[in-house]
Structures are given as structure tokens and as C-alpha cells.
């Protein structure tokens, strides 16, 4: 009689068949991946939304303030000079300028219509102040202005937003951290599930090694299975998360934080990255667990 000769090529899926399907742990992995990806979508939405908010608010800050001077006509020029000299001698100011009548008119036109006789009206003179890095001491500046030019008022209303912008920035970081933690948790859970699956199949592994299977071959069977399960679970989880986010009320013009908690523009791209990313995490985690466990088993 003659014996079979080795032949090249074989469908890779056969590696899957040599390990019996394991019911409960399979669902555990799929469910974990789904749940984790679902959570991840929200962490992502939070992170992107707070990122947008942080950007918007810090842009609005733009480090400018206004000094408004309202004084009796005969005092205007004297106090204007006083304001300019105070600003010139205050540390922490990058630049400043008086806004001239033409510009003032342009600013007021939307409210009062064209042809406004600015000279004849008691309209305050405006000075634009650009803050340096680090900024000026606004309380000190306010006091000096009060002393030298009683009609001048420092308006740095945008300053109150700074802590908010910082909070939004912090929130974005927390979101990113949450995503990293969710990913690490998923990797840990998949590692445990993979180790359990390998332990359950110790007998199968012994047979495979007996007939000459390499670790990489045995690992492949487990890695493929866990990666595919994770991909499936993560796809469902991401879809559910996206549906949840899409179901939130749309961002209105006021751009409140809660209503703005969605994806916009390129942000829509990220949730779609999650399932392949989860699969990659599963691939690496299972591979590592498999090689470790195989070494322990024999």
C-alpha cells in the first residue's frame, strides 16, 4: 500500500474546527465586547463634545478685553490720555489701541442704522486690550483706572469662561482615559476568557501536540475565534451606541452642553473605528494568553 503524500495549501478555517465550540464562554466574550464598545461610544461622544466645547470657549477667550470710557465732553481727551498711559505702564498687556470713531460707528451700525452722528452722541470711547502671557492683574488695573480716569471701566467679561474651558478640557481628558480603561478592561476580560477556554480544552491541546501541532497553530484556532466573536460583539455594541447617541436631541443654536453631546463632522468616523480596534485588542490579548497558557499546559 502507499501512504498519502503531503500537499500544499489548505483553507485556514480548518484551524477553527480542531477546537470544539464552547458555548457559554463564547457568549461571554461577545457580550463583553458589545457592552464595552457600547460604553466606549458614549465615552467617545463625551470626549469629542467636551473637546469641541473646550475649543469653542478658549477661542472665545482670545485674550482680549475692552476698556469703556464715558466722560463729560471736556474730560474725554484728558481721560483718554490717562487710560492710554495706564495701559502703557501695566505689565501683562501685549498691546492696546483706541478704537476710532469710524470703527465705533461700524460696531453700532447694526443696532442704530447708518449715519449715526457719533461725535454728537454720548457714546463711550472704546479701547481694545490684548492680554500677554502671563496676563495682567485685572483688579490692580481696575483700581489704577479708577484713580486716573474715573470714567473708564475695564470689561474683561470673557475671563469667567476660562475655568469653564479648562473644565471642558479636563472632561475631554477624562473621556479619553475612560476609553483607555474600557479597552484595558476588555483586554483583561478576553484574556481571562481565552485562558479559561484553553484550560477547558487541555485534552484537545494534548492531542494536537501529539500529532505535531505547533503552538502557533493551536493558538490560531483560539485567536481567530476570539477575534471574530469580539468583532461581532463590538459591531453590535457600536451600532447600539451610535443609535443611542443619534437619538439624543440635536444640538440647538445655543449649543448647550447636553444637547451638543453627539458626533459631528469627522467625529462620526470614530465610532466606526471601534469594532476593528476592539478586534485588534482581542487578537493581541488572546494571542498573548494562548502562548502563555500553552507553555503552562505542556
Amino acid at each position: 500500500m502507499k501512504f498519502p503524500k503531503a500537499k500544499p495549501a489548505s483553507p485556514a478555517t480548518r484551524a477553527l474546527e480542531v477546537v470544539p465550540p464552547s458555548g457559554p464562554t463564547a457568549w461571554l466574550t461577545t457580550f463583553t465586547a458589545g457592552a464595552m464598545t457600547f460604553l466606549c461610544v458614549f465615552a467617545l461622544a463625551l470626549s469629542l463634545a467636551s473637546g469641541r466645547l473646550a475649543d469653542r470657549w478658549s477661542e472665545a477667550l482670545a485674550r482680549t478685553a475692552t476698556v469703556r470710557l464715558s466722560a463729560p465732553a471736556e474730560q474725554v481727551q484728558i481721560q483718554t490720555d490717562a487710560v492710554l498711559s495706564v495701559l502703557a505702564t501695566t505689565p501683562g498687556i501685549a498691546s492696546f489701541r483706541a478704537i476710532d470713531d469710524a470703527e465705533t460707528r461700524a460696531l453700532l451700525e447694526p443696532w442704530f442704522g447708518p449715519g449715526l452722528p457719533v461725535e454728537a452722541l454720548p457714546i463711550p470711547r472704546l479701547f481694545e486690550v490684548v492680554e500677554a502671557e502671563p496676563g495682567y492683574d485685572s483688579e490692580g488695573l481696575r483700581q489704577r483706572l479708577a484713580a486716573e480716569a474715573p470714567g473708564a471701566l475695564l470689561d474683561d467679561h470673557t475671563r469667567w469662561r476660562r475655568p469653564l474651558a479648562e473644565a471642558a478640557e479636563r472632561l475631554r481628558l477624562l473621556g479619553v482615559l475612560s476609553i483607555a480603561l474600557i479597552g484595558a478592561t476588555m483586554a483583561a476580560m478576553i484574556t481571562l476568557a481565552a485562558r479559561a477556554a484553553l484550560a477547558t480544552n487541555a485534552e484537545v491541546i494534548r492531542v494536537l501536540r501529539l500529532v505535531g501541532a505547533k503552538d502557533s497553530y493551536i493558538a490560531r484556532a483560539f485567536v481567530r475565534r476570539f477575534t471574530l466573536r469580539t468583532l461581532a460583539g463590538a459591531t453590535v455594541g457600536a451600532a447600539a451606541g451610535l443609535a443611542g447617541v443619534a437619538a439624543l436631541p440635536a444640538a440647538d443654536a445655543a449649543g448647550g452642553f447636553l444637547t451638543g453631546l453627539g458626533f459631528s463632522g469627522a467625529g462620526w468616523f470614530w465610532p466606526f473605528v471601534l469594532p476593528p480596534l476592539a478586534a485588534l485588542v482581542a487578537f493581541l490579548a488572546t494571542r498573548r494568553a494562548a502562548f502563555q497558557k500553552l507553555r503552562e499546559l505542556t
Partner: protein
Amino acid sequence: MITFENVAYSYGGSELLSDVSLRLAPGSFHFLTGPSGSGKSTFLKLAYAELQPTSGRVTLFDRDVTALSRDDVARTRRRIGIVHQDCKFLDHMSLAANMTLPFTVSDRESDPQDLDELLGWVGLRHLADALPPQLSGGERQRAALARAVIVDPDVILADEPTGNVDWEMSLRILTLLVELNKMGKTILVATHDLNLIRQAKSQIQARVLRIAKHRVQLAGADL
């Protein structure tokens, strides 16, 4: 093919095997006998690198087993047909799939015609689609033997291949082993069945190794 040089082995306690030196020449037929628990299976495990000697040297195909990586061990196993004492199979796969497992795990394709021929040779053609748990003891033994030879190995190590079958089936399995030896394969059979050994000696030139007092000795003609 396989050489042992002053090999000793212990599972942690006292030495189970001591100072074992022997050489399995290509094309030879050896029996390994000894009382239950004397270390026959242990000896075979040393011979297919499942265990490493606690002292001394085991060489497989001219390579020291302690120098083999895990992948090397896997590759070496493809040149050795192993019939395990308890005939392990993958219970969720058909007999045919189990037989071709040595091909599957090395990403090779087996010829269906050759498989069919091999199943015919061991008389299991009608059970190709059966699951291993449905097989009788004798059928399992023959299936294990068929799986061991499917990749055309140079060496066949069989641990109690007639362990749980009747005399008639033992003879049938022996005939298969003798045929393999005639094809040039090196064969080592662990058994405590002295009748089987006598029967074999009438058909073929076989040598008998006996484990006694932790040593492996060549038995005389006193069987």
C-alpha cells in the same frame, strides 16, 4: 533514529528509570515489556520528547532533545507516529477528520483516496463518519494506529496497542504493525502481552526490551 545514553528519569521522587542506554536502529522492531507501573509509558514519552531526561541524553534523528525548541518538538513529532495508551481523539470531529489531523495541523491537505485506502487497511472504512466516542476499544486502537501512520512517519511508537482488545483483534493489530515494519518503519511497541511477543517473533525478527529494577535490558530468548 532514537538513542538513549545513560538516561535517567524521575517524576520527582526516586528514579523510575536509571542508566538507560540503547539505540533503535532504522527498520528495527522492538518490544518493550515490564510490569505495570515499571515505566513503559514513561520511556515512550522520553522517546517522543514529551518528557526530558533528568540526566543523560536522548537523541531523536541525531538531535539532542534538550536542544529542541517547542516548534522543533512539533516538527519532530511529524516524523514519529504515536499510538497513545488511551488513544486520544478529538471527540467532536469525525473519525476521518481525526485520521487526517496530522495533516491538518501542519496546514497540509491529505489525499481523500489515500485516506480511504488507509481506512480500508485498518478495516474502518464503514466508520469514517462516526464520532470517536461511538467506537469500540479495538476500533479505537486501529484508528489510533492509522492516524499514527498517515503522515508516513519514520518511527512508530505504540503504547499498549492491544491493551483492551481480544486475542483475535490483537493479532490483527500485530499484523498491521508487522506490515509497517516490512515497509521499513522503525517500530517500538510497549506491551505486557507476552503471547503477542511470541506471536510476533514467529513472524519477524523482533527484539525484546524489558524494564526491571529501573533498568532497560535486552531480554534473552527465554520468552
